[in-house]
């Protein structure tokens, strides 16, 4: 089980909300739910071992261990692992999770349908140039489109990770504040549908 997952004392509404939905994405964006079988764990493992990813994820695991981590997510209601594709090619590993089932849900006013994003851009050739911003905005919009009850999408980059923070801010995630999550000091950035609607 993820060390971030909270299982005790969940509100009935949080349990009833079930697992995170898949985002609705339009070209050039698409997504694929990962499978523990086949080539997916190999790809995720390779990306997670990249120095720029390892620094903040600290999950530079073997493909075998990643296969286990993917299977575990698919079995629970906490999070779902995706590959996000740009023009049909894998760009990033993304976990969509229910914030009220996560430690982060204890440090802000989390609604039962709120979602969080963790991501790692693995394709070295196509980063920068605003692609990350466009991707997280597409995912946030795609999640609220899929389930209108989702009002907020949260990002919680490391306080020191200025690159990620700038990316989320540029994508329309408002800075809420810094919170101590135990394993890291996180800068909370929230994409609030009630604010973003009409864009």
């Amino acid at each position, binding site marked *: 089980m993820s060390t971030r997952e909270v299982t005790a004392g969940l509100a009935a509404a949080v349990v009833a909300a079930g697992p995170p939905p898949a985002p609705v994405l339009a070209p050039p964006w698409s997504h694929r739910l990962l499978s523990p079988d086949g080539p997916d764990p190999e790809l995720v493992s390779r990306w997670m071992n990249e120095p720029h990813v390892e620094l903040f994820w600290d999950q530079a695991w073997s493909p075998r261990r990643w296969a286990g981590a993917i299977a575990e997510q698919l079995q629970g209601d906490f999070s779902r692992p995706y590959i996000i594709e740009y023009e049909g090619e894998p760009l990033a590993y993304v976990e969509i999770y229910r914030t009220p089932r996560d430690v982060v849900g204890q440090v802000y006013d989390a609604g039962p349908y709120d979602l969080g994003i963790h991501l790692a851009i693995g394709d070295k050739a196509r980063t*920068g140039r605003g692609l990350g911003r466009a991707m997280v905005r597409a995912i946030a919009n795609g999640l609220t489109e899929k389930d209108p009850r989702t009002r907020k999408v949260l990002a919680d980059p490391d306080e*020191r*990770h200025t*690159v*990620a923070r700038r990316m989320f801010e540029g994508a329309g995630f408002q800075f809420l504040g810094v919170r101590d999550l135990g394993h890291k000091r996180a800068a909370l950035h929230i994409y609030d549908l009630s604010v973003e609607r009409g864009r």
Partner: protein
Amino acid sequence: MTASLSLERLRGDVAEVLAEEPGTFADDDNLIDRGLDSIRLMSLATRWREAGFEAGYLDLAQEPTVKAWYNLVTAQRTEAQR
């Protein structure tokens, strides 16, 4: 130790990872807004560590400008000469 890391060299290396010409960005421009991402930042940290500059990714990320980075280099050089 960091003798090879002149201001010119920093500008040149940044220009190279951004695939820009030197001079298209100012020393106090926030480089994240100029296309610097975590992969490029990591490659600069690695490259400069090889030149003796003991700054990691997080040190560089704190204030991502050529000016701030050059201040770090000179501070380290002063420290080494003591």
